[in-house]
């Protein structure tokens, strides 16, 4: 059987397109509360939230920010430090399990997890209530920038 050269070239070109499409960068959310913002800034309005270990497609980069698209179709900006190119095991309670394989689910919560902490706490002294209270103290970026301004502090650069 013979195939004309143009057809073969077309076929190869199509293969190449497929490979390039596959090369679109996929990254994974590595923070518990993956804030997706309207603009590449900590002051951008939050337009969505991605969960830990969820995969997002990177559409473009701008400084320390990535414009990403979420599985549901929403797009927005996430800071570089919220993303990793490493694949992360799903947490048991993250609820983001809809699009993961059985193998990824098997990894869920199998590392040092809430379950391991609970088991460890049975045999060790520690003030976990104070840690829980500590974790509840969070200021949003706009409040923090206003705090700096009130003290006459003018940021020179870095994450904004």
């Amino acid at each position, binding site marked *: 059987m013979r195939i004309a050269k143009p057809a073969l070239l077309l076929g*190869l070109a199509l293969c190449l397109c497929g490979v390039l499409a596959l090369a679109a960068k996929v990254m994974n959310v590595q923070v*518990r509360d993956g804030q997706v913002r309207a603009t590449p800034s900590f002051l951008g309005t939050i337009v969505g939230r991605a969960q*830990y270990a969820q995969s997002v497609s990177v559409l473009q980069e701008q400084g320390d920010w990535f414009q990403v698209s979420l599985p549901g179709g929403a797009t927005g900006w996430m800071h570089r430090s919220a993303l990793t190119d490493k694949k992360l095991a799903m947490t048991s309670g993250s609820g983001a399990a809809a699009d993961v394989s059985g193998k990824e689910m098997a990894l869920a919560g199998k*590392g*040092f997890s809430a379950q*391991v902490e609970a088991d460890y706490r049975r045999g060790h002294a520690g*003030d976990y209530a104070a840690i829980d209270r500590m974790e509840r*103290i969070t200021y949003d970026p706009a409040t923090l920038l206003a705090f700096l301004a009130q003290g006459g502090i003018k940021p020179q650069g870095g994450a904004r």
Partner: protein
Amino acid sequence: MKRRILGLFSGMLLLFGILAGCNDPGSITRVLDALGGGGPGGGAGTVGGYAVSAVKSASAIAHASEDFTPEQEYYIGRSVGAGLLAKYHPLNDPKATAYVNEVGQALAMFSDMPQTYGGYHFLIMDSEDINAFAAPGGLIFITRGMLHCCAGENALAAVLAHEIGHVQNKDALRAIKRSRVTEALGIIGGEAVKHASGGRLPQLTSLFGDCINDIMSTMVNNGYSRELEFQADKTAVTILRRCGYDPAGLPVMLTAMQKRLRPGAADFAKTHPAPADRIAQLAGLARVAEITEPPARVTRFKDALGNI
């Protein structure tokens, strides 16, 4: 011919997979998993088993600062913090705590790692010892004694920026012995492949405890290497500059600390290089200078920390 084209196509895909997957050991597993799990019946047992041994050998040269996921780092950090609070009790002063969090969380925004799994949070410890600790993931602890070394907000910012530097540089995780990481990955990876449920919990918990102990003994007793301390100082200067604080706050605070440290005390004197050495090392980046702070900043510092 069809077969040849098909072969060419899958060859290209495989090549792409290999090219894309050569940066991290985990990706070896993914490529192997993708190949093994693709057909009916999976083949996960054999190919997956190989994948785990590939990860194990890769992990022999890797380390906790890269191998534990951010979520695991978070759980390690929580237990390190809870353990520290069994020794030093939290200061119950909501106003002072809020203020230290405002300064600290504002600084963290200007670090190279503004976001962590659970975020940055700061707590004052009710002790006259001069000490501060940074647990993995962003839980930062500072004693009243250390706050007394801070003449103003700029000096406080310097202390907190140094601790944020330890978090960003993942120094606490470096204190975990390498063998623990290899063992942990063995348990975690092995269990995933076998699809076993639960049975390894006591082993993991015991290993978790070993990791906490490694960090605690370095943090509380032995201290980090001088190199890591100077690196945290350098990171602090970068964070202070970006945020808009005067980096002179760091050598100024160290000068005040030098006067207050008691030689031989089981605090910063034991776990950190002498302040004079740190000041000398910083000379190229930040020098002692008079810091003038505007009245609003002076007032809020006094209001929050004046009576602790």
